């Protein structure tokens, strides 16, 4: 209708140039929600980070004081360091296991879908329940299930204090984390494997390529974009880890397994230093944004070349 009137050379009034007003009515709820509860707080997060902002009482402007303080705060550095270490360890492990499970289950064998469901099932579980279960598995006493099994098998002499000592605390959470999250990446891989044209494999088979060569020459290259995606999803997920550690180690021993999200939570909602917490979460937001952009760039470059 609009295009017709402009074609006739009639000047359109501003209102009709905006198009169908129904569009704005339908968009209104999501726009209001995102503006009020996402974009405004994101900006306010930076504003608050410039203040000494207690829960009760008046905020005091301190400029970049919170950021300066963060740089000198050993506890915060420890949390960043641990978060980085946790991410660097669990991401490749998770991606590798996800790929293996995807390969084990993307074939036409009878009943294979059953296994796929089993590997995916933990992802629908709440982290709290998973934490309760695994915390019990990793009981530190002699009667802890894993300790008992290892001791009976003669692998260890005495009980390991799984959740209370390093590096066992980290290892315990890694085991739980992989069980809990691997299904997500696995499904992404299965989706990608499924979309590889069957003709490629048929042609390769006719040329006499072995299954291994078909895997390295067809499957892996075709999965490259998926690797990028899975890495981004896993890295963001592990940077956001918090309930996993709250349930399993409670950040211990001595703060050694405290990820940055847990530190932000403690600073903001236990010590009620909201300005300081805001500064930390603002930095976290920037770090994640940079990581995401870098990773997407990397995976895109590789597919392009």
């Amino acid at each position: 209708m609009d295009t017709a009137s402009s074609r006739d050379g009639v000047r359109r009034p501003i209102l009709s140039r905006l198009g169908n007003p129904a569009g704005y009515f339908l968009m209104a709820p999501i726009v209001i929600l995102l503006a009020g509860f996402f974009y405004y707080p994101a900006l306010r997060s930076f504003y608050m980070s410039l203040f000494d902002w207690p829960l009760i009482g008046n905020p005091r402007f301190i400029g970049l004081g919170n950021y300066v303080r963060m740089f000198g705060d050993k506890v915060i550095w420890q949390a960043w360091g641990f978060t980085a270490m946790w991410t660097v360890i669990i991401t490749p492990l998770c991606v590798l296991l996800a790929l293996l499970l995807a390969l084990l289950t993307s074939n036409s064998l009878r009943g294979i879908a059953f296994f796929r469901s089993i590997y995916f099932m933990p992802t629908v579980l709440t982290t709290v329940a998973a934490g309760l279960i695994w915390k019990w598995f990793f009981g530190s006493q002699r009667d802890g299930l894993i300790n008992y099994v290892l001791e009976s098998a003669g692998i260890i002499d005495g009980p390991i204090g799984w959740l209370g000592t390093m590096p066992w605390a980290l290892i315990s959470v890694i085991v739980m984390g992989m069980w809990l999250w691997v299904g997500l990446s696995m499904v992404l891989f299965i989706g990608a494997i499924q979309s590889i044209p069957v003709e490629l494999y048929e042609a390769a088979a006719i040329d006499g390529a072995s299954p291994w060569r078909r895997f390295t020459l067809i499957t892996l290259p075709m999965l490259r974009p998926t690797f990028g995606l899975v890495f981004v999803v896993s890295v963001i997920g592990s940077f956001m880890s918090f309930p996993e550690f709250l349930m399993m180690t409670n950040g211990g021993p001595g703060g050694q397994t405290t990820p940055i999200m847990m530190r932000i939570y403690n600073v903001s909602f236990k010590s009620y230093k909201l300005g300081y917490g805001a500064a930390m979460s603002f930095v976290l937001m920037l770090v994640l944004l940079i990581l995401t952009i870098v990773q997407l760039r990397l995976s895109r470059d590789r597919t392009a070349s």
Partner: protein
Amino acid sequence: MTSVALDTPVRMGLLRWRLHGGDLIVYALNILVAALFLLPWIIAITISLLPETALKTYPPTIFAWPPDFGSYVRLLTVDDGRFLGYLRTSAVVAGCTAISVVLVSGMAGYALSKIRFAGRELFFVLILGTLMFPFTTVLIPLFSIMSQLKLVNNPVSLVILYTVVQAPFCTFLFRNSFSAVPDAVRESALVDGANEWQVLVRVMIPLALPALATVLIYSFYQSWNEFTIALIFLTDDQTTTVPIGLVNLTTSGRFASHPNMQMAGAVMSFLPILVLFLLFQRFFVSGIISGSTKG
């Protein structure tokens, strides 16, 4: 929509061998790994059915016959049904969020796919842009905003925030689904005198039922399981959701040294979602796939 269903076989992969021996290896590996993956579920259930007397034994007891449902009874009746209260809050929050997400993202998805208006592309970018920033990084300002709105300790705050978290992705899902519906369908409905709202509810949504199911299920189970936001915005133990209530009861609370009670709590927290999953597997997965491959 690319749909990968867990319950239909995929035709291609590395391990597609004609040899029977190869198939056996694949099965053997799968059985081994699946057993490991199932173990935590099974043991959680068997521990929850242990009688109190079997708790502190050496070697540890993991199974007892006959099953003792005492832990469930006790959990459901503790403090005049405190746990039932958690279940109720979680169900109400997850149900309301699912409905609200369908409304908000269905409307936006329809506008973005079928209606022409100025700034449509910009709106789309702003909505997708939120997916780049993890929501947890804006929680601190949100806490002071919710305090001013007097919504802290009110489940309404969770419904609002979960909708904010989930609506962008679900808008994207609906938009893709509605885009697949031919424009002519909408236009003939408009010619017949329907308004845009009626087109959305009576024409578009019935033609996009898989998307509707995906959004409803995704939204419900994400809200049911969510931890961090609930921890911050529902600090009052009496009105909180299952995950937070479970932490309160088990880690510092009175069931700290009662694995059977802890496991009973875990089982009750996952049972509704597990049933949903076993019934509607393909919708759990289709959400993840369509969100990622086109994102």
